């Protein structure tokens, strides 16, 4: 049977058809880092949390920072796909799949960190046995589980027509043949199926937006509803959601740049997409600068004793480099790049800076507050150990590994959404060259 794709669509399927040795090398490298992280975690499991830098005073460190960071970047899928789908932004079509898959991978990786931070993972069962509705931890568990399920469904539904195409167009082994048949084998493209699919996707697009916002709001409440300096703040919900969308856009920009180059998707992912997302990134950057100034200026101006101690730890203490690096290198510098360097390279550099800065920002939210003494004699220090850094590296590698495998199993650009696009999104060549330059 003839493949049901045009010649241009074949470019999207090319990564599924052929795998080079470079991909296997990448896979092996990422798997090695993940393996090292598993070894480090087994060490922690055996010896207990004493092998980390965590103490009874600073009980949240790198692990919880990673958790907040990964849940944050999971907002990429929500923003790019759901919001743009609901607002009928046509330029979204080539990048929705990348965004939706980032969401699922990021939740899977991020949700593991509270377990790692527990030290005793069997204690997760306490959430089921002794969970209480008053507990922010239970809210967190429910919202993340709901978000993960919704995101999986929201990723799967638009995949169904493409899987039918892949099943008929690509020579498949037993595993992939089974996978595609189970997930999209019954798709015929009839009008009934089309209507049902669009209805389902539309419903999911509407429902996943408040779910995503609630997830990061609840994550922020774990901090915000605690009577601790630097955390007990009314703006923490919107501050976290803003930061999450900010880092989510940055992550999708990086993913776009990588796939565009590696899989030769220049025809689909154009400078227009970078410019539009770059503009969104700039808006969020300015919002984050505003929130950050508001948060720290309020604490500084009030000059309450513990607030002063907290601001001092941040501005001149052991994390001053991180704090000023985050402010200047992660918020101010990207804003300049996004205003004055609007080519793909400038936008991607800004996105990388934003992602690094947003991890630092999560760390600076978690750790300095726990270092700030609740009583005069309880100054605390926290230095992550190699165990924590190894597990963090493994998480980043694991995220990249899952994403790479996904791009080899499923079309990373939605074929049917591209075909549905009313007019070609490609721009004049001169514009692209100009943008790249």
């Amino acid at each position: 049977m003839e493949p049901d794709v045009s010649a241009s669509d074949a470019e999207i399927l090319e990564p599924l058809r052929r795998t080079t040795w470079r991909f296997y090398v990448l896979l092996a490298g990422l798997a090695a880092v993940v393996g090292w992280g598993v070894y480090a975690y087994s060490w922690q499991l055996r010896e207990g949390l004493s092998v980390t830098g965590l103490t009874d005073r600073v009980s949240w460190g790198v692990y919880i920072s990673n958790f907040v960071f990964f849940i944050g970047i999971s907002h990429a899928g929500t923003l790019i796909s759901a919001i743009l789908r609901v607002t009928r932004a046509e330029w979204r079509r080539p990048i929705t799949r990348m965004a939706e898959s980032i969401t699922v991978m990021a939740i899977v990786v991020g949700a593991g960190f509270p377990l790692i931070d527990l030290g005793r993972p069997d204690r997760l069962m306490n959430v089921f046995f002794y969970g209480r509705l008053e507990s922010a931890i239970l809210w967190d568990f429910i919202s993340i589980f709901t978000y993960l399920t919704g995101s999986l469904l929201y990723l799967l539904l638009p995949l169904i027509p493409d899987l039918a195409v892949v099943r008929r167009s690509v020579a498949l082994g037993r595993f992939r043949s089974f996978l595609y048949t189970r997930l999209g084998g019954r798709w015929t493209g009839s009008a009934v199926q089309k209507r049902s699919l669009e209805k389902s996707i539309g419903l999911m697009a509407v429902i996943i937006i408040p779910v995503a916002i609630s997830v990061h709001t609840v994550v922020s409440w774990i901090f915000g509803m605690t009577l601790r300096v630097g955390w007990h703040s009314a703006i923490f919900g919107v501050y976290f959601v803003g930061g999450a969308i900010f880092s989510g856009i940055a992550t999708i920009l990086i993913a776009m740049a990588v796939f565009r180059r590696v899989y030769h998707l220049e025809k689909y992912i154009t400078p227009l997409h970078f410019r539009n997302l770059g503009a969104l990134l700039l808006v969020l950057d300015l919002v984050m600068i505003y929130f950050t100034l508001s948060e720290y200026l309020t604490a500084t101006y009030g000059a309450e004793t513990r607030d002063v101690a907290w601001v001092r730890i941040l501005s001149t203490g052991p994390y001053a480099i991180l704090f000023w690096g985050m402010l200047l290198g992660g918020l101010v510098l990207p804003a300049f790049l996004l205003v004055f360097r609007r080519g793909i390279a400038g936008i991607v550099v800004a996105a990388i800076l934003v992602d690094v800065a947003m991890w630092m920002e999560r760390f600076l939210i978690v750790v300095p507050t726990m270092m700030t003494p609740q009583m005069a004699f309880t100054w605390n220090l926290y230095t992550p150990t190699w165990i924590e850094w190894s597990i963090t590296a493994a998480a980043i590698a694991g995220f990249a590994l899952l994403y790479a495998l996904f791009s080899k199993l499923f079309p990373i650009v939605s074929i049917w959404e591209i075909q549905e696009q009313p007019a070609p999104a490609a721009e004049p060549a001169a514009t692209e060259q100009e943008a790249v330059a």
Partner: protein
Amino acid sequence: MTRSSVVLLAAAVVAVLLFAPAPLAPTRGAVASHAGSAQCFLGGGPASDGVISPGEYGETFFDGVTKILANFHCDASPERLLHVGLVSPWSGWVGLLVQAAEPMDGYANEVRLAYAPNEGGLRVQDAYRSIAEPTATADVLLGGRGDVLNVSTGSDGPARVFEFAIPLRSSDPYDSYLESEGPFYFAFEYSADLVDLDSGATALSSTSFVVEGVTLTGTWSAVEMAIVPPAAPPEAAQILLDLRDARGFPVPSAQLEVFVQTAFGFYEAGPVYTNEQGVASASFAPRDEGDYLIGAAYTGGYGLLASVAWQTLHVSSEFAGNPDAASLVGLRPVESLIVVIILGVWATYGYAFFVTHQSLRTQRPKAETRAEGPLAWRRR
């Protein structure tokens, strides 16, 4: 990975989750020890009436593991009668193990007592047992005799009081270890809820004291407790405590242990310290409605003997008796709203999945679809 290996892996994970040590499982009774002195006084012993009156006993020990308060009084009669008054929070039997030579090793004499109001009332067993065995054998079955004297029982609030006496110079060969002047090693054990004296113990703890001298080493103390109950769980109950000496004067700066009985054993809500008025307070936030046994103990010191107080806290739900709210027991309206929203989200997921799944299950409508391929609808 084959299907069977996936099933095996899943079974292994489930097995680990099911059989891994539960974090909140009741812990085994640790062995606690206390050292002190018991004196044999000239004159008669305490009245055996099931009531422990102020100053009735010369020595007290509170055991933190079993939560049993033991009162001792040795009279200087030829038999050297040791009078014992036990105050126990447990509804099952309590036991006192006595040994002359070794600290709870080998064989010991044991007195077990239980109160079963619907099954004959007070039960007593003078027994002999190996420390390594969980059950004891009555002396009479071994050829000896039961010589537990002056047994009585009564209640002290929710706690059960047992009073009895044992001859230290017994002629029973199974009590022969007690012919010595001491030191004697004592241990307490209990069954949390079984009154069958042959049943195994829930926990065991040990203590030791020396029988010698005739001087008074401590005066009586009394812990009093008042509880301000919460309106509904999980609001906190306030536990007010008062410690006074034999003259009725407040005892300042004293440490009081406070504990609450839960399904997993006793939860320590203390320690707390008395102020200059001899008053201290603790709080306890009950999780659910129901009855909670709360105890407070002063373990002695500064010339004062140990004392304990027990009370039952009854907590009722604010929804109790309101049938309209039966389905929302434990939930406040906002929490109920959140639950409804979450269920709505999941229902939407289910509907979206159902709609797509149903359309995929329908028969392929036209041959043209087969011919044109799955994306034909996009091109039309």
